[in-house]
């Protein structure tokens, strides 16, 4: 069993390992990308695992073949290269074809946002939310902790549809508890309730939103937090119902803004449901990040330091 402090990828791979003990229909393919638990999988289940080499396009094509034959397929690679190097394969072989045939392909990308902090802009992944949201028929899962990830695994087995799963590469603290009943048809959870202001965040940034909310609380300012973990196929009406009570909504993502990501998702909800809330979009400006430093330092260059966000919320 994984520890609460494990990375989300290890939590998912542990679930896959456990399921392989009783289910021979599971296939895990890696583009030469590893994890400690993966060593156990390839040793104990050599007939259910393959390393296809550093070849993301072929990875997606091979996965399609297995899925067409009824297997539940998980493919594992670095998020930037899985979502963008193999994009046209994902579009044509997966999104397009699954309109006609059921394909249970789970694209697991590690390294969401700038979580590969020091690897630079080639390994940062500030585009995958927008890129995958562009395609019909793919459920986009952007979890914030291992509990959510573990719970999603059963959903991923039962729902015979394509899914893109973006993991932060770092170990993050748990937000949810095992007892929490997560509704994957809704696709979000209101973690902190408030009256006027609310941050909607995803993945790593949900942790930051919780910190900001807790800090503001000490100053007697209420700020809600919504963790948006499905960025496609979420329950729009339920989301609008929650958002309608807020005057100011702040979207917070480790992604380029104004380009179809989480901010656009919320902007669409505000427009479609005639909500009166003011929208503030926080994320990465239109520049790749060549600077080195800690994650928080890189955030500060974008105006995304905790203090920056607190000030913005106070002003609005």
């Amino acid at each position, binding site marked *: 069993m994984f520890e609460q402090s494990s990375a989300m990828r290890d939590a998912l791979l542990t679930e896959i390992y456990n399921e392989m003990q009783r289910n021979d229909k599971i296939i895990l393919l890696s583009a030469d990308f590893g994890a400690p638990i993966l060593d156990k999988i390839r040793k104990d289940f050599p007939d259910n695992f393959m390393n296809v080499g550093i070849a993301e396009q072929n990875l997606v094509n*091979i996965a399609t073949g297995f899925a067409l034959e009824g297997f539940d397929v998980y493919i594992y690679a670095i998020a930037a290269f899985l979502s963008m190097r193999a994009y046209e394969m994902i579009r044509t072989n997966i999104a397009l074809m699954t309109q006609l045939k059921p394909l249970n392909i789970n694209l697991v990308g590690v390294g969401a946002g700038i979580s590969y902090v020091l690897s630079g802009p080639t390994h940062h992944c500030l585009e995958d939310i927008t890129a995958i949201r562009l395609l019909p028929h793919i459920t986009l899962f952007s979890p914030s902790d291992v509990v959510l990830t573990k719970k999603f695994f059963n959903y991923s087995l039962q729902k015979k549809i394509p899914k893109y799963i973006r993991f932060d590469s770092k170990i993050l603290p748990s937000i949810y508890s095992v007892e929490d009943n997560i509704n994957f048809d809704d696709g979000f959870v209101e973690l902190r309730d408030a009256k006027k202001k609310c941050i909607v965040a995803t993945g790593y940034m949900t942790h930051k939103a919780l910190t900001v909310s807790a800090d503001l609380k000490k100053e007697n300012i209420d700020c809600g937090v919504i963790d948006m973990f499905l960025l496609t196929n979420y329950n729009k009406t339920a989301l609008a119902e929650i958002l309608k009570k807020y005057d100011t909504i702040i979207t917070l993502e480790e992604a380029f803004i104004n380009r179809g990501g989480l901010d656009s998702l919320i902007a669409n909800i505000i427009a479609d449901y005639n909500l009166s809330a003011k929208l503030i979009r926080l994320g990465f400006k239109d520049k790749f990040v060549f600077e080195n430093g800690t994650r928080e330092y890189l955030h500060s260059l974008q105006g995304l330091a905790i203090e920056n966000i607190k000030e913005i919320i106070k002003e609005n």
Partner: protein
Amino acid sequence: MKCDYDYLKSRALWLRKETLKLHSLAPETRIASSLSPIEILTALYYGKILKVDSANINNENRDRFISSKGHGSIAMYPLLADLGFFDKTELQKVCQPNALLGGIPDCNIPGFETTNGSLGLGLGTGCGIALALKKKKNDGFVFVLSGDGELFEGSVWEAIMFAGHNKINNLILIIDNNKISMLDYCKNIIDLEPLEEKFKNFKWYVKRIDGHNIKEVYDTLIDLKTSDISMPKVLIADTVKGKGVPILETDSLCHIKSLTKEQVDNLLAELN
């Protein structure tokens, strides 16, 4: 296995004529690249090398056929209709509003396993299907038909390396080597030769034949399917783009050329 080569020859002639007729109904279909694989398709389907059943299309024990060269697969329409995969009246409606059959076949058409038209996807997908069949202990084969121009796509070589290394011997790649891409002869774009050596170096079992000699096509495909060798297999079928239509055969831009109804009528009269 005994084979009536004269029968296959007559079916190939019939299919060439039906493909031309179909093209005259829908000039937006790619005729030149659909005429080069006629003998290959004839041997696979009428020679019953490919194990498929129109009465049970998703039969688990079928062979899987992927037509990766989507544009050049229009000959499959009259062929599949004749074999009962869908109603022959669909042929008359090709490319019309709400028609089943469009300019490039998709997997909503009975008899097509995958969506085609985007080059470089078929072989990798075929590798996955072939491995899945092995895992299911299903002795079906996967046939992938590719054009030579498609070999310019890098993803094809990812799959070629992968299949050779993993000894995927229930996978048969057929290259319709018609030597012309869209704008020019392939050898003027990037020379693919020596093609046999390339595949041999990637650990494939290679045969090269005249792709319009129905006996050679049939016999070699049977050999590839039955030979007990632990390698993926490739048939390099040397063909002529626009085969049977002199004005296309000599034109390096024939991929994008359409024939008029009158030209097709004259050709049909000559082929008779």
